[in-house]
Structures are given as C-alpha cells and as structure tokens.
C-alpha cells in the first residue's frame, strides 16, 4: 500500500459507512444514542453495544440518495442478533418501500460478520431470512451492492445473504464462505479441513479465489478511495444483472463437471470455471450418480413426502431431493423434500444435509413451478423439512455452498413474491443454513410438536467451541434466552409458527395424522391467499410475536421507520 492510501479494513464500522458516502453527507439512523441494544446479551452476562453492532447510515453516493448498512466486526464477531438483524431487515424493507413509491435509494451493505450471533441463535436465523427476502424484492428495483473487506469477512447465514446480491466487491484480505474453518474442522474432522492452515483457508475462500471463480464481481485494494470508486461504478451499469443465485442452469452444469471423489485444488477450479463460463449450457444436466444404486434409508422427510403424495412414487433428478406434484384437497401443489442419500457423490452430504447439488436442485424444482404457472394461478409449494445441517466440507466451501443454499432460498422467495403460497412443514430437524435454504423463506411454517423436531443455528459442540463456553453453560443460557434453545416449543415462543401440531406420530404417521396435516396445510394456503401478503411479515405480527417473541424486532422497525428520511 502506498503512503497516500488509507486502509478501509482498519476503519471501524461507522467510519466505513462514512467513507463510502459522499463527504459530509453521512447521517445515522437508530444510532448509539438511541439506546436500542440487545436485550438478550446482558441476561447472559455479556456486555452489549449501544448500536448492537450495526450502523444504518443515510447520505449520498455520487450525488444520489443511499442507505449504507455497515456491520461492526469488532463487536461479537459481527454476529447478527435480534436488534442488529431487525435494523438491517428494517432498513432494506424501508429502502424497498422507497422504490415502490418511486423514490430511488442505493442500498450498500458493508459485510464483516461471522453470521448468526450464537448467543441469540434463532433470532439471527429469523432475521437473516427476512433480510434475504428483502434483498430478493429490492433487487428488482436497484442493484444491491455488497462489500466484503475483512477482517472477519462474511460467513454463516450472512454468506447466504451476500450470495443473493447483485454485485459483490471483495478485497484480497477478505474471506467469504458458509462454514468457518473451525466449524468445518469441528464437524468433519481435521483431515477434511485444517483450521490452522491459513494458506489453505485463503486459497479456498479468500478474495482472490472468489473473484477468479466468479463468486465475487470485483476485487478492490484495501483502500478507501478504491472501494468507494468500486461501489460507485456498480451503480453506473445500465443493464439489470441476474444474480448468481438465479443462474441455476449454469451452476448445475458447472458442478456436473466436478468429480468430488478426487480433491479439486483451488487453481483447478479456477480453470474449470473459466472454461465453463462461456460455454453453451446443455438443457439437461446429468450426474454420474443420479440413479439410486441401492436401498434408500427411511427418514422423516421421505416418510412424509410419500404419505402426503398418497404413497405414489416421488420424482427426483438427484436422489436426495424428492419432489412431486400432488393433490392437496382439490388443488395441485408441489411438495419438495430433502432426504439422505448414502451414495451421494459428495461425501459430506450423505445424511440428508443440504449440500451443493441439493441447494441447486431445490432451486430448479421451485423455479420450474414459477415458470410453468406464469399464466395461471400460482401453485402452492410445500417444503417438507427434515435437514440436519448444511454440508460441511472442503469441496463445499470451494465450490460455493453458500451460493447453493442461497439459490434455494432465492427460488423460494421469488416464488412467494410471485404469489405462490409457500408453506413449510417441519417434521424433523430444521438447522441453520440448511433451513435458511429449504423452508425459512415460506409464508407460513407448520411444525410437529415432537422431541425430534428441532430448530437452531449450530450443533451444541460447534456453538460451544465458537463462543468459548461449555455445553453446560450453553444449556444454562438457553433457559434464560429461548431463542438459544433447540426444542420446538422454545422456537414457537418466538411467534414464527403458523401452527404447532400435537399428537402426530412424526416417525410413522397414521392415515389420520396425514389427514390432519393435509387439513392444516390446506388451511395455511387459504390463510395466505386470504391475507394476500407475500412478504414474511406474518411472522412478525402474530399474536405471540407481538406479545413476546419479536418485541425488540418490532420496536426497532417502528423506530427506524419514524426516523427514516431517505
């Protein structure tokens, strides 16, 4: 770096927002003196920050009105909790409102985040699904621009958010991936990924690699002027961009050329990407292992899709993502379920995880519904959820599992925004990035009240490692903060469920159980159509959410709207 350069990375979150905006135009909304901090951290003996680690700034970018959302990576690793998440989602929702009213505003997001704040867990995931929904809607009106500069980089659920963006600018110092190196090592072993091998980390998920393989659109120097210029340039482009998560056919084609039985080096992937980028995309993608080689294990996801389609044969292109159009009441609906495939070509996605192929396959099966129904009544889509996690592995990070998960989330959000009632039925586990991809973008969430039904952000082992607490301490904390708990009743207390259904045999439903669930799903579809609202607000305004579960989320949104003057 030359003597005249000023490092962007060394600035704190607020200074970064100031640096992006035209000089002297910065003003802050819901700033530190408004005193809206996390209500959940002090209960766990953790000192909160007066802005909860997120800066919402208004001002001008190249003379045009803009909103800059900047995450302070120095506070709790830039983790997203209820207040910080609501500030981000609220700002994007207000920016969307602006555009709907014909008042343009340029949205810029300065990422520096490890993802969900594990001390608030499910609040982080809920917020991230709402942020993603707002990005997908906003992208129709304006480029949504992100900067990933480091030090922290962009990880976890927020990497799925970033994958949805129109443009991403990275520095070579930044890292961008779904699962942090420590978490992969914890979940999959040191042979899969050595979290101490810094060279391996940057070669796999660093800015240069991401740029060379198209997962970032621009590479900027760690310099205030360079980053400011890169942001301004993205808004000068005239043609509307197609986000990478919308390019389902291309990425399925690209992935079909990978043989995961051999370790793909980062430079080999660069070559593969560049060779594939300008090729015509074949209309069908064939995988080497897309036939079912043996008996498939039973799982809740498989049992429930079979039951709901009246024991017909489910369709699939890859054996781990089942789908079928079937009657629900008198109406044809599409069911989608992710199931274990012990022969999966990706080793780390053999137990029902949402992996690379799974994310893109879900996206395909959702998007074909949108396309087919373009000139007719939008078909309801039912996501049957029993997903133990996203896949943790080296290939997953290298090949962009955050984009695969983002593609699925994007497709569900796009379907919902196009008027398809999207209903989630949680029959088993609904964990973290897997749930963000498959299920969290729905209009209504129905869950079975059963011990095997869990919603949370990370396994206890990994969460303990990352937050430097013992599992016992985590369990103690979750008694005070229900969003940290793993059981479905705690999740229900947040107000995001349309219905929590008791008395169902989740492992082996009876005919009567299936009928009960079908009736509830029919009711949920009717409820969506009656309300006629296709964003995620029903979760925020449910009685339980208003009374207790999302109180802070609502206060933040209300106050932000009151202060909004962009």
């Amino acid at each position, binding site marked *: 770096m030359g003597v005249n350069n000023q490092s962007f990375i060394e600035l704190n979150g607020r200074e970064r927002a100031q640096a992006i905006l035209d000089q002297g135009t910065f003003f802050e909304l819901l*700033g530190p003196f408004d005193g809206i901090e996390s209500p959940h951290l002090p209960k766990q003996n953790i000192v909160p920050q007066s802005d909860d680690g997120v800066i919402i700034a208004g001002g001008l970018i190249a003379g045009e009105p803009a909103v800059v959302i900047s995450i302070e990576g120095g506070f709790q690793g830039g983790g997203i909790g209820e207040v910080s998440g609501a500030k981000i989602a609220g700002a994007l929702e207000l920016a969307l409102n602006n555009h709907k009213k014909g008042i343009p505003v340029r949205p810029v997001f300065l990422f520096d985040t490890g993802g969900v704040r594990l001390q608030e867990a499910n609040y982080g995931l809920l917020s991230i699904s709402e942020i993603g929904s707002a990005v997908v809607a906003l992208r129709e009106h304006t480029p949504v621009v992100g900067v990933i500069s480091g030090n922290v980089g962009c990880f976890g659920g927020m990497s799925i958010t970033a994958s949805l963006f129109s443009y991403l600018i990275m520095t070579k110092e930044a890292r961008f991936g779904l699962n942090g190196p420590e978490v992969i090592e914890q979940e999959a072993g040191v042979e899969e990924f050595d979290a101490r091998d810094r060279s391996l980390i940057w070669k796999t998920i660093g800015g240069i690699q991401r740029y060379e393989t198209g997962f970032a659109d621009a590479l900027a120097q760690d310099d205030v002027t360079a980053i400011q210029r890169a942001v301004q340039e993205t808004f000068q482009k005239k043609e509307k961009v197609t986000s990478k998560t919308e390019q389902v056919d291309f990425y399925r084609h690209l992935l079909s050329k990978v043989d995961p039985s051999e370790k793909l080096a980062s430079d080999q992937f660069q070559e593969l990407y560049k060779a594939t980028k300008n090729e015509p995309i074949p209309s069908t993608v064939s995988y080497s292992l897309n036939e079912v080689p043996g008996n498939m294990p039973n799982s809740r996801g498989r049992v429930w899709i079979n039951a709901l389609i009246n024991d017909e044969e489910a369709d699939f292109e890859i054996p781990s993502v089942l789908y079928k159009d079937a009657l629900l009441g008198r109406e044809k609906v599409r069911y989608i379920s992710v199931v274990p495939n012990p022969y999966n070509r990706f080793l780390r996605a053999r137990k029902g995880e949402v992996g690379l192929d799974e994310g893109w396959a879900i996206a395909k099966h959702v998007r074909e519904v949108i396309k087919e129904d373009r000139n007719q009544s939008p078909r309801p889509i039912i996501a049957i959820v029993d997903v133990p996690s996203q896949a943790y592995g080296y290939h997953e990070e290298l090949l962009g599992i955050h984009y695969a998960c983002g593609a699925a989330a994007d497709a569900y959000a796009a379907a919902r925004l196009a008027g398809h009632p999207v209903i989630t039925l949680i029959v088993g586990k609904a964990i973290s990035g897997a749930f963000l991809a498959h299920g969290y973008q729905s209009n209504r969430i129905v869950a079975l009240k059963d011990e095997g039904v869990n919603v949370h952000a990370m396994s206890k082992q990994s969460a303990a490692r990352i937050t430097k607490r013992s599992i016992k301490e985590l369990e103690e904390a979750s008694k005070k903060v229900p969003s940290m708990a793993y059981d479905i009743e705690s999740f229900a207390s947040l107000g995001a469920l349309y219905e929590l259904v008791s008395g169902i045999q989740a492992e082996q439903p009876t005919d009567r159980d299936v009928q009960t669930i079908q009736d509830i799903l029919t009711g949920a579809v009717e409820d969506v159509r009656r309300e006629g609202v296709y964003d995620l607000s029903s979760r925020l305004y449910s009685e339980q959410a208003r009374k207790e579960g999302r109180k802070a989320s609502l206060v933040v949104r209300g106050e932000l709207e009151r202060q909004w003057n962009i």
Partner: protein
Amino acid sequence: METLVFKYKADRKLTQRAHVGVVGSGDLEILMVPSDEEHAHVSVRTGSEGFSETWKAVLDRFFSVHTIQAKIVINDFGATPGVVALRLAQALEVSENGSE
C-alpha cells in the same frame, strides 16, 4: 458482567455529545452526553469482574482534571487502564471540538 456507578462534582459544560470505541477485544465504547446537572455521572458495564478499584483509580484521575457536566456510559470488553484513559480523552475531544 458487572455494573459500576461513579459520580463526580463538575462545573464545566460540554458543547456536544460524543461516541467513541467499540465493545470489542481489549477495547470499550464510551457515550458522553452533555448534562445541566453539576456533576458527571458515569455508569460502567464491564465483562471483566473484580476491577472496581482499578476503574475508580482511572476515573478519579480523569474527572479530577476534567470537571465536565456529563452523563457517561461505558461498555467495556476488557480494555486496559491505558486504553480507558485514551478513549476518555478522545470522547472529551469530540465533545469539546465537535468533529467525530
């Protein structure tokens, strides 16, 4: 987490509020708001328990020199006494001179 409260006599008005620092490793956040009352009111939340004497010493020293009328909120994440003193001086500078 521990909350400590301190109060000092004061006779000097501040021109504007100030916010400095981050609640991050080895650092702290200070909010300084001008007040009409004739004392400085300091409230400290710190993740490192058992350092109330050290806090008292650092704050006594600062407020014996700077008798400012202000409400001060400190959110601490393990800052050393040296960092605390620097951040207080920085907050005061912003409060008196205006540029954040």
